[in-house]
């Protein structure tokens, strides 16, 4: 299923998210099962299926990481179910250092400042990757798409760091 087609959007990493939300609400209204209350059982079933599709499509395209994965999936590259090992030593060293910093927050003198600093570092790094990724995902060449896949894998590690940092931040308030 091509979710960009479903929402009448040009396949791209940089999409207009306001437009996506607008199209989502339009589609949601059009296929809402309540509208099919007096229809045949088959039409009701189809409405339920369409609603699920529209919801899946929206959540896939809303999140930049899953949007990028969807673009590659449309090009025949499945990153969702792969179990590839990343061996980029420099990148992994940086990941290791950041994981160590996350551990240090608990016994830091100023945990709030450290959390803010880490958020900023993660942001800068992820934004850098995202900028390169946007260009590569417009390409149709095999090597560009392979490079895009590598960047998406890196973004997955960044997403993990982000989740861990959010968890630690929440724990600070408890």
């Amino acid at each position: 299923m091509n979710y960009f087609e479903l929402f009448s959007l040009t396949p791209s990493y940089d999409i207009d998210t306001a437009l996506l939300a607008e199209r989502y609400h339009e589609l949601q209204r059009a296929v809402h099962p309540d509208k099919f209350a007096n229809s045949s059982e088959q039409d009701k079933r189809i409405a339920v299926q369409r609603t699920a599709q529209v919801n899946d499509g929206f959540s896939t395209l809303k999140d930049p990481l899953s949007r990028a994965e969807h673009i590659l999936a449309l090009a025949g590259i499945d990153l969702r179910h792969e179990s590839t090992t990343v061996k980029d030593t420099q990148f992994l060293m940086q990941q290791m250092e950041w994981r160590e910093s996350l551990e240090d927050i608990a016994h830091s003198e100023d945990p709030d400042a450290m959390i803010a600093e880490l958020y900023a570092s993660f942001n800068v790094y992820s934004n850098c990757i995202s900028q390169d990724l946007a260009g590569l995902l417009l390409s149709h060449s095999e090597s560009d798409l392979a490079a895009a896949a590598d960047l998406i894998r890196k973004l997955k590690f960044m997403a993990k760091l982000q989740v861990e940092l959010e968890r630690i931040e929440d724990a600070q308030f408890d």
Partner: protein
Amino acid sequence: MAYSEKVIDHYENPRNVGSFDKNDPSVVTGMVGAPACGDVMKLQLKIDDKGMIQDAKFKTYGCGSAIASSSLITEWVKGKSIEEAAAIKNTDIAEELALPPVKIHCSILAEDAIKAAIEDYKSKQAK
């Protein structure tokens, strides 16, 4: 999901956690990561001039199975030659720890860590 007793044992009492001095010429490092779960694994081996693994240390950020897999391989590779260590298969690790199918990738990561460390050894030998 229930972890096996062996996984819990390695998780609660991980063997050989830590780092060697990376400037020590006999130390080689294998760094690997799994994008699917964000796990990061570092395996360091101390190798003598006969190509025997004297000592091993690891540091892993990941789930219990990933920590247990890396802890186990540090025990296994000690005293082995490079060739013997290279022959360790993820299926051996998964079997020893009784890993469920969804955690097999943790054992693959550990096997890849050994391979990455051996590659580092070979590239250092070539210099």
